[in-house]
């Protein structure tokens, strides 16, 4: 594939003195050389998300000499980020991630430019933010921003280097319908219902995983800029860190795709908001205060804790019935479908999945606790340890 950077743009670039030394290991590669290094210098890359994936992506791109890196993230550095978000340090806690990341990138390579966008990407600001950039890298951590990044890339004709992670697994691809491949919506036309999906906080993630997946994304970005190798267009790479196995699925552009298909109907950016589709009029989600009231009430009910064994041993609510989510489908017979059942987990993601399982199994009087046991510790009983 041709380089994303036209030859005309190389005329303005000159590398001299210290830069020749900095990039010496690139300059000796025939596939990069002086011309390729100029392409990297001319390139402008927008990295959406400065977290787990954004850390290796931005650091490797900075080290490689990408001329301008844009960072979009509205979040601040939290202690629980540092297990995987290696661009940030302990002294950065509570700083804006974009500020912390910019400082790190400019320390790695003071000769690049870093532009920070400390906002949440939205349908309103996305086009203006993305306008100057050649390439978008999706390092987001939530479905609404993933779909928005994809739609933004397709509608502005920029390639989208996609990566996402879950526990010990990652997915990577390059979405570029203008080069014949599919977009994210060709694979997954609509986001799943919110209740189905655990977030990183809920599902947990091996800290090294985003390092591997983000490095693969940075690699694809550099290839697209240099115009070398075979880009991951039309292929979804799946990585399993436990099996240490890469699998590849061949993809195809969906002619019916609402965004990049032959007769697209989605022509403007739209924000996606999640809605929980639960087939019932009864409230299926209660907060910890409602749970506290229900416990004070003397009528019996089943409090179902669907966290894992080690979490249950660390802290649990008195009287809870414990069945880990993974075992729930085969242990349904231990529960009474007629009994009032209130499900909780750590913060509310797994309990929402358990809720769907029980509803599908015919349980009627069932709901789950918003915020889980952590909200309980925070708002009701601080003696229950948080984790």
């Amino acid at each position: 594939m041709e380089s994303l950077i036209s030859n005309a743009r190389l005329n303005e670039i000159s590398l001299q003195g210290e830069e020749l030394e900095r990039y010496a290991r690139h300059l000796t590669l025939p596939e990069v050389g002086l011309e390729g290094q100029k392409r990297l210098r001319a390139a402008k890359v927008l990295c959406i998300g400065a977290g787990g994936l954004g850390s290796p992506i931005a650091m490797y791109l900075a080290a490689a000499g990408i001329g301008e890196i844009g960072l979009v993230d509205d979040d601040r550095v939290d202690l629980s980020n540092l297990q995987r978000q290696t661009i940030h340090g302990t002294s950065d806690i509570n700083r804006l991630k974009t500020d912390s990341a910019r400082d790190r990138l400019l320390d790695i390579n003071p000769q690049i430019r870093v532009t920070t966008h400390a906002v949440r990407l939205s349908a309103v600001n996305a086009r203006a933010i993305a306008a100057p950039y050649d390439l978008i890298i999706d390092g987001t951590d939530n479905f609404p921003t993933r779909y928005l990044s994809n739609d933004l890339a397709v509608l502005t004709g920029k390639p989208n280097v996609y990566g996402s992670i879950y526990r010990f697994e990652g997915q990577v691809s390059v979405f570029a319908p203008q080069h014949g491949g599919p977009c994210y919506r060709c694979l997954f036309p609509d986001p799943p219902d919110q209740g189905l999906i655990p977030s990183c906080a809920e599902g947990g993630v091996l800290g090294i995983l985003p390092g591997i997946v983000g490095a693969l994304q940075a690699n694809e970005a550099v290839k697209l800029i240099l115009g070398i190798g075979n880009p991951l267009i039309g292929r979804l790479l799946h990585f399993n860190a436990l099996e240490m196995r890469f699998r590849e699925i061949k993809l195809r552009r969906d002619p019916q795709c609402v965004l990049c298909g032959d007769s697209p109907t989605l022509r403007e950016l739209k924000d996606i908001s999640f809605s929980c589709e639960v087939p019932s009029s009864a409230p299926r989600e209660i907060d910890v205060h409602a749970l506290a009231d229900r416990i004070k009430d003397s009528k019996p009910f089943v409090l179902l804790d669907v966290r894992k064994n080690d979490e249950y041993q660390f802290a649990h609510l008195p009287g809870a019935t414990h069945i880990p989510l993974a075992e729930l489908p085969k242990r349904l017979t231990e529960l009474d479908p007629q009994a009032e059942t209130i499900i909780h987990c750590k913060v509310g993601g797994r309990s929402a999945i358990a809720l769907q399982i029980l509803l599908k199994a015919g349980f009627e009087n069932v709901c789950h606790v918003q915020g889980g046991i952590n909200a309980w510790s925070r708002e009701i009983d601080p003696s229950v340890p948080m984790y």
Partner: protein
Amino acid sequence: MEINILFFSVLRELAARDGLIMELAQGATLGDAVSELFRQFPNLAAWDGRLLLAVNSEYADRERVLESGDEVALMPPVQGG
């Protein structure tokens, strides 16, 4: 005929296994295999219409007629980053 089903990510946890061998009648389609899976694992059914389906590591639609020994992969979208 026998086909080999592979689960990925959250589906593996919901099904509590990496995959399974499924016995299907000759001429069965990918759609038939998926319907049978949702019957065996009702907790997967909420993912209906939200999964990337592949046969022998290549995207396939539900009308695809399966052959003995085919490997069917069910890949959910993943949001973490």
